């Protein structure tokens, strides 16, 4: 019989109290994610019902579902203190993988297990009401992160300070520029150090001064045994922020390892693609 050890085993309370152990990890085993792409008639109940009763051609018509395999056979272990950079071309599956890690998508196949509080910065707009002021939005977005308004109110000043938005914090968010929105969203999402921070590439749109400040904050809590997963095109940013890298290509993990090696592999991949494209052009021309 297979011995099954409880994965999310309770750490002794005294350990937690003393801060001796904080267990956070992300673990993927043979994870596949298939996106059903519904279009036209496959979105229609009427067509689907007709199809089941008539079969034949209609069935094929109504069920014109196309499945896109966004991730295929991904196995990754990410543990305490890892700052992981996800790199890959557009459509390589970076965002899908982030969403699986954030718990938004459940894998279609394979297993996903995680431990630790997750804060995900996938979309800047989530929980932000454009008509409310920055300060009101701190409470609002906090709620979607599972933080009670009472607690958030006590942190609001601290968050407002970190954004360095000055008087703008009391202005409606619709007056904000993209960069200001990023400042606000990042400050809110990291006001309580999460065990696992998941960020999509939009962060890179922030200005250099804020990026530096953000990096210091992230480094601070990654040192306190947390996990960072960051997806980006910018090899420069990833090299600065991360110590491990994962290269995705067409939904598969090509290589994992120290960030330098992975970035080098990514450069080779881009080079290869460019060469291939050039060869095709030459053949066509």
């Amino acid at each position, binding site marked *: 019989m*297979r011995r*099954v*050890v*409880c*994965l999310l085993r309770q750490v002794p309370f005294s350990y937690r109290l003393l801060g001796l152990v904080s267990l956070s*990890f992300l673990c993927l085993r043979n994870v596949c994610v298939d996106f059903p792409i519904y279009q036209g008639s496959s979105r229609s109940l009427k067509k689907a019902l007709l199809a089941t009763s008539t079969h034949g051609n209609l069935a094929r018509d109504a069920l014109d579902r196309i499945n896109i395999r966004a991730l295929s056979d991904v196995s990754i272990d990410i*543990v305490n203190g890892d700052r992981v950079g996800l790199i890959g071309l557009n459509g390589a599956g970076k965002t899908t993988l982030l969403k699986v890690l954030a718990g938004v998508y459940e894998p279609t196949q394979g297993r996903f297990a995680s431990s630790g509080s997750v804060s*995900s910065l996938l979309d800047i707009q989530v929980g932000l009401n454009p008509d409310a002021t920055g300060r009101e939005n701190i409470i609002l977005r906090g709620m979607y992160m599972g933080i009670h308004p009472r607690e958030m109110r006590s942190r609001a000043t601290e968050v407002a300070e970190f954004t360095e938005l000055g008087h703008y914090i009391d202005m409606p968010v619709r007056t904000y520029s993209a960069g200001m929105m990023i400042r606000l969203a990042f400050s809110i999402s990291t006001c309580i150090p999460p065990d696992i921070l998941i960020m999509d590439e939009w962060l890179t749109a922030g200005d250099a001064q804020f990026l530096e400040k953000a990096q210091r904050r992230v480094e601070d809590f990654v040192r306190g045994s947390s996990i960072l997963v960051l997806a980006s095109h910018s090899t420069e940013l990833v090299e600065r922020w991360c110590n491990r890298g994962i290269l995705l290509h067409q939904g598969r993990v090509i290589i994992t390892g120290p960030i330098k090696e992975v970035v080098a592999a990514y450069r080779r991949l881009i080079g290869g693609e460019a060469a291939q494209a050039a060869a095709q052009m030459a053949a066509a021309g």
Partner: protein
Amino acid sequence: MQPETVFDACTGQIVELTEPPTRIGLAVTDLLEGMRKSWLWTTLAQQDVKLRYRGSILGPFWQTLTTGAMIGGMGVIYSKLFRTELYDYLPMLTVGLIFWTLIAGIVTEGCGTFIAVQGIIQQVKLPFSLHVYRLVYRNLLTLAHNFVIIPIVLLMYPHPIAWLRLIELLPGLVLITITGIWVAILLGMISARFRDVPPIVASIVQVVFFVTPVMWPIQALGSNAWWAQLNPFFAAIDVLRGPLLGQSTAPYSWSILLVATALGCAASFAFFARFRSRIAFWV
């Protein structure tokens, strides 16, 4: 098959993964987790109501005024049409229409349970049931605002109130709330998958309003009243209207409502357990 293993950072050992929780287990966890976050959905629902009437002086009571005007207008015309006294007709119409607003609200909005919050579903991990509770609670809040009209009408046209029977309202409301939850889950999921469902449901609700004795007295059907009594929508309104107006409820109303709730819960739960993980892909 090779055993699935994971590095345990706590002990530094390689341990095997536990069996994944079953679909039913996950569905139950989802429903309970949503309940545990009650502070979140109550706050969000209150905010929904506030935002809907933002900028108007009356606030949410704007809704009360609309319902009141509708009841006043319909009351005068239809009591003439049905040749009944306003004294009898208006209280019946008021109570019926206010509870119908709740039922119709949950059913039509229920189609958007998940579609309406797709931005959140796609970005943040929250129990799916949370969106359901938020929707049902929001409609109960609207009911509370509309409810103000009932005592006003009952004061204008005083009927003897059977105080003891008002206790019956409680189980009635509980049953309607539970029904609201399963309806919102079921319709919300079907609508997320099949986008032609919301308009279909909207037209059905409209038809049901006219065939259900909401604005016409069931006695008007004479000896044919029995088939209207089998209508579950009537049953739902009847168990609430009866005690408020001190009238007896139709013989099968409670049993019909109970059976409908039980069957609906079973079907809805089965559907939720089977397709819960697909919702994020559907919206």
